[in-house]
């Protein structure tokens, strides 16, 4: 497929070549891409397609990480921004969904508890960032960005071992915070 001016690949190349303003173009394009992805997976499709749900941020990472021409800081910045955007898109979506949800009818069935609450994770993550900003970035990249841990280590220029340790701690901290002990 030709990489026209509307494609992420096009602007990745421009960025790679050092074209001015390419990163801004890229970021806004990626935001659109992320929203489309979210729309595809969250609105228009069936549960069947969840199976194929991929994390675009991770794909982006895989695409740009071999580009040696772009300095590490630029890559890390770009991926971090993408993960933040993804976080915003997903929490917005969850919030809207919650708002539109009708109150449950007083049915005589026993309802199971809601298994996961993204908004609760989001709120807890804000608190985590106050005391443990590094851990919070890991969570953002891993949970909201969908990066795997080696990729997170790449973005944050940390050893995989340290990322794994921090991730463990962050998960426990967040879960504790959400559960409200």
């Amino acid at each position, binding site marked *: 497929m030709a990489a026209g001016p509307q494609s992420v690949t096009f602007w990745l190349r421009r960025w790679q070549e050092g074209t001015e303003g390419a990163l801004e173009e890229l970021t806004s394009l990626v935001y659109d891409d992320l929203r489309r992805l979210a729309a595809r997976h969250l609105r228009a499709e069936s*549960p*069947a397609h969840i*199976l194929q*749900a991929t994390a675009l941020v991770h794909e982006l990472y895989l695409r740009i990480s071999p580009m040696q021409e772009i300095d590490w800081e630029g890559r890390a910045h770009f991926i971090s921004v993408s993960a933040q955007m993804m976080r915003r898109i997903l929490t917005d979506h969850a919030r809207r*969904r919650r708002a539109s949800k009708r109150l449950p009818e007083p049915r005589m069935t026993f309802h199971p508890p809601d298994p996961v609450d993204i908004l609760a994770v989001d709120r807890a993550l804000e608190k985590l960032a106050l005391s443990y900003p590094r851990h919070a970035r890991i969570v953002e990249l891993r949970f909201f960005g969908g990066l795997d841990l080696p990729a997170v280590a790449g973005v944050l220029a940390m050893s995989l071992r340290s990322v794994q340790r921090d991730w463990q701690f962050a*998960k*426990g901290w967040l*879960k504790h915070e959400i559960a409200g002990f």
Partner: protein
Amino acid sequence: MKLPDSDELERLFHAASALSTGDRAEFLKAAGPTLANAVSAMIQGARDPLWDRSAIHVEARDSAFECCPPRPGDTFGPYRIVRRIAGGGMSFVYEAARDDSEFQKRVAIKFVRQGIDDDAGIERFRGERQILAQLEHPNIARLLDGGTSADGAPYLVMEFVAGVPIDRFAMEGALSRAQRIQLFLQVCEAVQYAHSNLVVHRDIKPANILVTADGVPKLLDFGIAKLLTGGPGGETVAALTPEYASPEQVLGRSITTATDIYSLGLLLFLLLADRLPYSATSPGELVHAICEEAPVWEPRGLIDGDLESVIAVCLRKEPEKRYPSVERLADDLRRYLEGLPVSARGGALLYRTAKFVRRRKLPLAAAAVVALGSIAGIVSIVTQSRRLERRYNQVRTLAGAVLFNAYDALQDLPGSLPARRLLADSAQQNLDTLAREAAGDRQFIASLAASYRRLGDVRGGPYGPNLGDTAGALTTYRKAEALLQAAVAHDPSDVDLSFELAQTHLSVARALLRQQELEAALPLLRGTAQSLQSLQARFPKQSRYVMAVTSAYQHLSECLAFLANRNGSSSQAFEALAFAQKGLEVYQTFAPGSGMEWQEHLSAKYFSVGYRLWNVAQRTGDPSYYRQALEFHLKGQAINTALAAAYPAREGRRLADGLLTVASTRWYCCRDTSRTLAQTQQALAMFQELVNADPQNAEARRDVANTLQLRGRVLGEIGLRGEALAADREALAIYQDLRRADPTDRENDIAIAIVKPQIAALEQPPR
């Protein structure tokens, strides 16, 4: 408690994480109880499977069912969504079609909202699913498939049932009381069958019992409630329907077969009175009524005294005071229909104690093991027909000899697969070119068609060595079919062309059978059998017509037997038997000769009848058919023994096959353990010898696996679990190896599907 923001917390967390649970508690004592608890909770929380998924998966799953359920045309694995049937609450049910039609065309898929979030849950779900998939009964909608999607959302694929809920059926059809009871008795049969397989329904209610247009009730969602919500002990009450819940379900106590008996009582009440025996208007009142109050019988007269007694026994609050089995309940209802006194009334019904239920567990477990073996018949059918077919291939005249001789010469060369493919492709091209010039010349068309057929066999003919391309084979057969159909339409009196067409139909049908496209194969086989029958009637003694018509009967019988197993239909099993018998009869009456080949065919036909009898035994549950099956198998094996004595090299395989069959039939009919084990040991040695002679011989390897699998079952049943497990695992390894070699061959899949639950059952500690 608010966590302290400190490096100390982090240090404690990591240090404690590295310790075992016991050491951890000790280690954390020094930190004080509050911090110790917090760190323990954190370590636990870090293990939450929530974190294994990214937010988009979580959000997508949560929102998908709310805002955008599957739509018609969406595909889910091999299934294509047709329409939504029901939805809301815990699950959504869709009608779907299986596009590749490997098993069943029309299915119902149930998507469940609640995720299964831990490995143990998924494992349990899988195990239960396998047990439920074994339930085969005409009044139970079969569970065909299922799993969990990548993000843990479980789904189940079930037989699609077109029907209306039983209460509506009774009301709209204005059924008489006796008719309603008859209908209810069919439901009882299904529940009883499931109970004998150690499966409790747990959610019997009208919405889960659909009656088809033919008036056949089908129970849906057997055991699904446990599958989806139950813990290991299955006491969870989530998602059940309170109106139809038993006291023990409402109270969260343990659930047994008596729970289903309670629900059956409610259902019977509903069918007779068109309402439930409660006058509750709120959930609280309902719970009270279920647990404390006697059923409301007023206004009197809807349910007469005897029936009231029967229902009252079902509805007792204490599970142990209800009928001890569905069978007893059904017996009472039959007595009622015959005007005899019911046991519920005379106080003759023994109040069973928990002890009794415990004692019942052993025979129930034994029954479950027998049921596990019930699809073994499929394997037997396949094995048997393969053997028969090998013979037929040998007598079949081959056209296009030059091309195919070259192919055959390459066949045995290792690494010749690409060359063989090339050869097959160029053969196809040559034939296609020739076909364009074939118009009018009947001789030419006949030989061309025969060449196409042979080429189809090479591509993926069901029984001989082939390139493993069944779909390609079908396409090639269809070309022969088209050529011949045109020619026969032009001159219907041409016997040779009609015969060639019938042969081609048989090839198509065989490929369809191999693909388990039974619905497509059945009418084709019926038509072909009919036309071959009339040909044979015109030329009664001509060997090729006798062979062809008996072959058609054989395949027709095989197809019906598959269908009987798939549909749980005993009528189809009987029809399958009838065609096998017809084949034997025609063969004995008309086939000329008494030589080796004639004997081989006769033996095969005896075994064929035997297998169908076996199948009937399985479908009807009448063990006397196993005895009859054994008789036929012994007749066949007597011939095999004589043949092997005369032609040891050629007939060794046949003898071993027969031995395996006799051994397994003997096991089914008579549970003769020592003899079965001795005979399978002997068969195993014979098959192993064949494998040693030719390690590439896939059929012989499969035979070894089949034998091991039977031994596994026998050994397992007599309690030699370790040995049984070893045999089953060895069998599984062989099947998996064979499947890797030829993924298109469904036989291996079927075999794997049989042996895996056998292994799983053995791996679990004995109950």
